[in-house]
């Protein structure tokens, strides 16, 4: 076994960020099967005609189905989803990728677009949950 450059748990240390691991991929397998099915025009039509009935073709959890119906992208990420699959859904809806992504930030699409045009979100202060906590508690941990 090679030397580990950092503990794997550090992957959980990035604020507002969910790393797509093998385990999450397994959790979202049927959700993602649904997403990839939208790569065919006929399936997109069937989905649009009756979303619930179309979703019931897949072995997704009820929570995952609800989150799809509500286009609740943060919840879908929580339930194992990965954005590269999920944009098949927002593309089907005719959303831009920017609108789909902005829906996870708590900003309106316009606010988000303005932030991007102004140079995007700076990573400063958003790199480590541990660091954020240390700052919050006045750096006593030094």
């Amino acid at each position, binding site marked *: 076994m090679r030397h580990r*450059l*950092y503990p794997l748990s*550090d*992957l959980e240390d*990035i*604020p*507002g*960020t*969910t*790393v*797509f*691991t*093998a385990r999450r*991929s397994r959790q979202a*397998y049927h959700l*993602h*099967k649904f*997403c*990839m099915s*939208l*790569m*065919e*025009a006929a399936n*997109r039509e069937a989905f649009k005609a009756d979303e619930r009935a179309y979703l019931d073709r897949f072995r997704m959890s009820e929570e995952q189905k609800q989150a799809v119906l509500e286009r609740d992208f*943060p919840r879908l*990420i929580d339930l194992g989803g*990965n*954005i*590269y*699959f999920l*944009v*098949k*859904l*927002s*593309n*089907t809806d*005719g959303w*831009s*990728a*920017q609108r789909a*992504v*902005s829906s*996870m*930030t*708590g900003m309106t699409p316009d606010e*988000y677009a303005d*932030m*991007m*045009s102004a*140079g*995007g*979100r*700076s*990573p400063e202060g*958003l*790199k*480590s949950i541990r660091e954020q906590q240390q700052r919050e508690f006045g750096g006593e941990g030094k």
Partner: protein
Amino acid sequence: MARITAGIGTSHVPAIGAAIDLGRTADDYWAPVFAGYEFVKAWVKDNTPDVVILCYNDHASAMMLDIVPTFAIGFAEEFEPADEGWGPRPVPTVIGHPDLAGHIAEQLVIDEFDITIMNDIAVDHGLTVPLSLVFGQPEEWPCKVIPLAVNVTQFPTPSAERCWKLGEAIRDAVECYPEDIEVQVWGTGGMSHQLQGPRAGLIAPEFDNAFLERLAAGPDGTSELRGITRLDFLREAGTEGIELIMWLIMRAAMGPNVDELHRFYHVPASNTAVGHVVMKPKAQFRHKLGEVEARKATAA
């Protein structure tokens, strides 16, 4: 013998593809992006290769669900543009080069890369947007393309160091292909961006520009890039900024030193920082034997 004549690095933002397909390249929003590609579009006219080895990542279009390969090489005669949910992009079918792809796959397995061969894949914006950026909107693409797909999404992704070694091995493989053809290697994706969660919209110009600077440098600069961990990429450049590992495959395939012909950086395109470089292997007396021996020693 075949030769690697140049390398191109570029972002492959899907919205850039849409802007091209919908004729919006002169819009206020888009004009500054496309201005950065004027150089390459002129340059490539006199520098069209026979084959491009195009390192990209599939965005859950042909892989990632039932099959998740670390490194996959496209071995078909042709590759159709994928339908990513809005219909396939209106671009030509991509024509492969099965003979060179087979040769490279063979060499890579001998060099202890555990390659996956794909005989049937649709290619998504990760592959077609760079072609559009460089070649415009022709009836047919002016050269063959070998897709080389890298897993950058499902953890753990291959390390920067592993990608570097892959690039070196690709160079060796091309250089022992018996036909006298010109090959370019392209690395696509990035630069900094994050497409998920409350941190979405992250852009890291400092990280990106340091990356570009070191990419153009010799072994001192590139050895720093090889040491960037997966965690570093995510923290510093966003969950999708890790796509930059594909630029390292391209860079390693150039050999130790390069001449940078063009560099461009712009924020934003949709959710993403756009980066683009054109480089050539530096003319040099390559101490070829010594170099190969040194690498062999580390390959156990």
